[in-house]
């Protein structure tokens, strides 16, 4: 089994983690992969971090309930190492002056106080760091590097380091992949620092571990936020990037087996800028997906080995632009499965639950009795059973999360038409036990995936009705909701 540990640092890192978890759940990294996830951010309330945590939670729950090891969907194991806040030990001290105990510093040594004044601007000293490092790598580096004093003994680190060392002891070659932007605050300070510190911490098994990173170059832009405090400024992005790349090349490069630089010639503009907190919840972008796809690429050795760029000159992203053998194929299948579920099967199952006579439902839905029992005569699961309700709810929650994410990808281009023609609706999970009337039934998948044309003999796969008939006519390894979803994914 392949072991991968992904670390998302900062808001962009969290978005890449979201993409990586979706790719992992879709089977894009292969069937036999265990992925550990750790999120790193000083801003615990960051909207993107919360979204990523929600995605990890949904994928964990859906994976544990719906895994069929023979099918790529959810076949990989996911382990959540949770979240680490570099400010964790200083939760009562939320400014740099508090963390470095400025008053005490001056009292002990006046020279140190003056050096501190030289290195840190007055507004940076007093900036509230509970919403992150505000696009200032200098603040981030000062905070993140303090992990060295704890020797990775706090928070989720001991478990993560132990697992990596255990993998090496078992003869595996685990891979640690870091995600972060290089133009903001948390990512550009945390990614090189953590990569270097991890490399040192694992020096005993360093040869058996691959440390790689997806470094995101400036790919978005925004206006000045409304608050008066200091904030990330888009005008600093190029400067930050230049400094961070030089640092990576000269000092941190040796710590990584490979660093993938990912960028976009056309910057996406975020309309509602934020200096951090829950309001920093920028939509996902294809650039993060490309960064996440790098996890499955061969690391090679040495800095600068491998770079992912879009292959087309078109301003719109196409499926061919995504690296990785399985990336596009898995994503297309997952998208079609989730779409079919959301706009058809979910309401069908809820409708079936309402029927007193399941027999009556099966007469107009011949696929139904292949997965669920109509009476006590068969051993198949009862659609009204608690386990089935849990599976339905878990997959629905995950599929809504996937569709929300994918919708953002599709709309992240210059026009709202790339990759897939997704309905202009707000995807929401539904808590009720009755059909969700906001999900208008869909019959055809023909125009969903842009650029995908099926061969004539495969055309039936565009009709949800014919897909259901195929399910009705074939035998299945698994029954119940888990069988239905996995079999649909296989044939779709």
């Amino acid at each position, binding site marked *: 089994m392949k072991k991968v540990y992904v670390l998302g640092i900062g808001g962009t890192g969290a978005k890449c983690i979201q993409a990586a978890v979706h790719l992992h759940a879709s089977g894009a990294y292969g069937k036999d992969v265990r992925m550990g996830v750790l999120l790193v951010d000083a801003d615990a309330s960051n909207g993107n971090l919360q979204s990523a945590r929600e995605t990890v939670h949904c994928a964990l729950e859906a994976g544990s309930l719906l895994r069929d090891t023979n099918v790529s969907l959810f076949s990989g194991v996911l382990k959540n190492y949770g979240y680490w806040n570099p400010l964790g030990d200083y939760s009562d001290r939320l400014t740099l002056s508090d963390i470095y105990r400025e008053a005490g510093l001056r009292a002990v040594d006046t020279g140190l106080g003056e050096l501190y004044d030289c290195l840190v601007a007055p507004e940076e000293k007093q900036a509230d760091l509970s919403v992150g490092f505000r696009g200032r790598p200098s603040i981030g580096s000062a905070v993140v590097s303090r992990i060295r004093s704890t020797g990775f003994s706090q928070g989720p680190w001991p478990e993560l380091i132990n697992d990596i060392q255990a993998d090496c002891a078992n003869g595996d070659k685990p891979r640690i992949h870091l995600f972060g932007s290089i133009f903001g605050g948390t990512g550009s300070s945390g990614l090189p620092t953590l990569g270097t510190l991890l490399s040192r911490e694992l020096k005993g098994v360093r040869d058996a571990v691959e440390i790689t990173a997806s470094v995101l170059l400036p790919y978005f832009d925004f206006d000045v936020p409304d608050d008066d405090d200091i904030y990330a400024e888009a005008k600093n992005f190029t400067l930050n990037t230049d400094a961070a790349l030089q640092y990576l090349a000269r000092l941190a490069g040796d710590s990584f087996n490979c660093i993938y630089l990912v960028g976009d010639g056309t910057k996406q503009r975020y309309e509602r800028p934020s200096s951090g907190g829950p309001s920093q919840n920028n939509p996902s972008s294809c650039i993060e997906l490309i960064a996440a796809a790098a996890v499955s690429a061969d690391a090679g050795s040495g800095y600068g080995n491998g770079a992912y760029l879009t292959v087309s000159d078109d301003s719109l992203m196409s499926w061919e632009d995504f690296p990785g053998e399985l990336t596009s194929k898995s994503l297309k299948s997952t998208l079609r499965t989730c779409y079919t579920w959301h706009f058809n099967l979910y*309401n069908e199952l809820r409708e079936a639950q309402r029927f007193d006579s399941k027999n009556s439902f099966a007469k107009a839905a011949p696929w139904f009795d292949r997965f669920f029992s109509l009476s006590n005569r068969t051993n198949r699961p009862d659609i009204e059973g608690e386990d089935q309700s849990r599976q339905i709810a878990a997959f629905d929650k995950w599929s809504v999360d996937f569709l929300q994410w994918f919708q953002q990808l599709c709309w992240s281009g210059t026009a709202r038409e790339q990759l897939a023609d997704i309905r202009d609706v707000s995807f929401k999970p539904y808590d009720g036990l009755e059909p969700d009337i906001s999900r208008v*039934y869909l019959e055809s998948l023909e125009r969903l995936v842009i650029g995908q044309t099926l061969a004539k003999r495969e055309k039936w796969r565009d009709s949800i009705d014919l897909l259901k008939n195929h399910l009705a006519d074939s035998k299945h390894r698994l029954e119940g909701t888990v069988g239905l979803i996995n079999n649909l994914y296989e044939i779709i």
Partner: protein
Amino acid sequence: MKARYVAGGLAIAFGVIWIMGITFGLITDVLPVSLQNPAAWAQQIYFPASAVSTLLYVGFLLAWVYYSYNRRCANCSEAKQTISIWLSLLGMAVISNIIVLILFIQFTVVQAPATQAALAGASFVNAPPYEFLIPLTLINGLLLFWLPTCFLSQRTLRFIPPMSYELNTITEKR
């Protein structure tokens, strides 16, 4: 070949035997019909009428099979609504059977040798046996439309004909 298709073929064969063979025998030998020459009447009126009716039944059956093959239903309730189409086709098949019988009875003159009773000048009522033929068309409809559609309906509509799910569990383990 799927067992259900074999069952469907057998159902059609049985329907044809029923309408053109068994019913023929019932008219000539079993039922108390008021016909001067039941054998000649059956031969010259019922037999061609039943042949045309059989073709019509098969036509309606094929229409349903074609419809069920090509119909795409987004959901269960949409599929359930197609029972009205099935019922309409069944109704049209039975009515067309009755119309064909009436047309043949009305427009065909039976050519048969005179019986002894007729030669003796006895009065004789030569009434077409509608009281038997009309109820028999319902059985024709069941055998030549309902039963085959139970086995030959396609895709999502395969269990729409009444009792088709139950009948199919005989030919196929579900």
